[in-house]
């Protein structure tokens, strides 16, 4: 195991043992209870998957921020003294792993509530959309974590506004200006998501990539 993976494991262990992991989990379960109060009719699988992926983004961002903020600041200094710049990657890997667990719970709940059985293509597209959702959540969570935004109030507002801006901009059709979460839902409901998946993937990864690059750059002076 590399040093960076050992750090990711340490951070996951600390997160799992702290109360912080429970908060987004409870929010996720509440969201799932609302989303899947009734079963999903046959033929609606891909639309329901896109809705799930889009609505999970803020929960996943909250979880990513929670994981990155669990460790005391001085412990992060200790990690930097041991790993140098790779400390940052250790945090992001740990956060992404925790998001995969939450996204898998969301996806699992969705599958349990399907009336019909989805095709393999729909299933894989669903997994893919949840991965895009996790990437968006990771970037938003990282950019609102404590080294970047030390005030919890400012950070929470920034996280909520970040997600709202995704909704508003993508609702207005500006697919290149944000993660097009409304575009996922709209395309899925109109049955064009699968054919346009490569383009929507590029659009959905562009801003998280820029966000994570910005996070890396900002962390140089915010250890």
């Amino acid at each position, binding site marked *: *195991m590399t*040093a960076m993976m*050992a*750090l990711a*494991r*340490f951070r996951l*262990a*600390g997160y799992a*043992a*702290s109360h912080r992991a429970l908060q987004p989990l409870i929010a996720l379960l509440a969201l799932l209870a609302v989303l899947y109060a009734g079963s999903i009719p046959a033929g609606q699988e891909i639309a329901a998957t896109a809705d799930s992926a889009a609505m999970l983004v803020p929960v996943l961002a909250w979880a990513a921020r929670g994981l990155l903020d669990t*460790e*005391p*600041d*001085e*412990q992060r*200094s*200790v*990690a*930097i*003294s*041991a*790993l*140098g710049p790779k400390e940052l990657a250790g945090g992001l890997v740990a956060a992404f792993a925790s998001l995969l667990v939450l996204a898998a719970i969301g996806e699992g709940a969705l599958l349990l509530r399907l009336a019909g059985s989805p095709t393999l293509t729909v299933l894989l597209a669903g997994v893919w959309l949840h991965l895009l959702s996790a990437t968006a959540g990771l970037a938003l969570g990282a950019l609102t974590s404590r080294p970047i935004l030390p005030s919890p109030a400012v950070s929470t507002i920034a996280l909520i506004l970040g997600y709202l801006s995704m909704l508003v901009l993508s609702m207005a059709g500006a697919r290149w200006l944000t993660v097009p979460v409304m575009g996922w839902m709209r395309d899925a409901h109109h049955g064009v998501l699968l054919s346009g998946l490569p383009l929507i993937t590029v659009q959905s990864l562009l801003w998280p990539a820029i966000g994570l690059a910005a996070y890396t750059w900002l962390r*140089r*002076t915010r*250890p």
Partner: protein
Amino acid sequence: MTMRIASLSFRYGRRAPWILSDAGLVLDAGDVVEVTGPNGTGKSTLLRLVAGLLRPTRGSVEDRPRIVGYAPERFPSDQPFTVAAYLRHMAAVRRVSTESIGRWSERLGMDHLLGQRLPDLSKGSAHKVGLAQALLAEPGLLVLDEPFAGLDAATRAELPRIIGEISARGGIVVASDHQGDLRYFPGLRRCEVRDRALRELDPVDPIEDAAEPALTVLEVAVAASKAQDLADRLRAEGCTVNITARATREVAG
């Protein structure tokens, strides 16, 4: 290997005041450096820059040894691990065998703490955990922020020996030390951080110091507003200072 701190300046933000300005220091293999200075002048900031935890605003820290150990002034004990689990994780992060945990816990007198949870530790015990994680990987550069604070007598005596061993194998040790436990360390280099500058002080001569030279009393008249500052500076130099309230203009004249 020589590590160089060259024209280093630092401030925490664009509008923040400068903490250090144009500081320079050359650290040779085996050097043990004590960083002194009044509270709040930037000792911890300097140590963080040396350890690579902060990035200089200007200037550079060159040829820092690859393995850095850093023990913070206050160990962050608010973590959901036992001492043993925490040190095992740190050993894995440092890619060293878990055997080193046993060795260092024994030397630092913390064997009995291994099963305890970090939040339950006393300040001194938590401090030992901070020292242990810094020592796990045989650091080429060891940075210690107030390493003697809160330690029991046995560990206070052991720590200079550990520092001596690291120095003997060519490691560099930089420590801030208010308690003065390192003062008579053989070959100790002393640096002072004051008024944004880093200044190397003359080494303490243990013979002269140990002989307890005769004391003399010096009367100094100074503006009342500056008295406290001067007193602090003189105390930092090792003088005993009593401020009396006699405001006698005649003496100044």
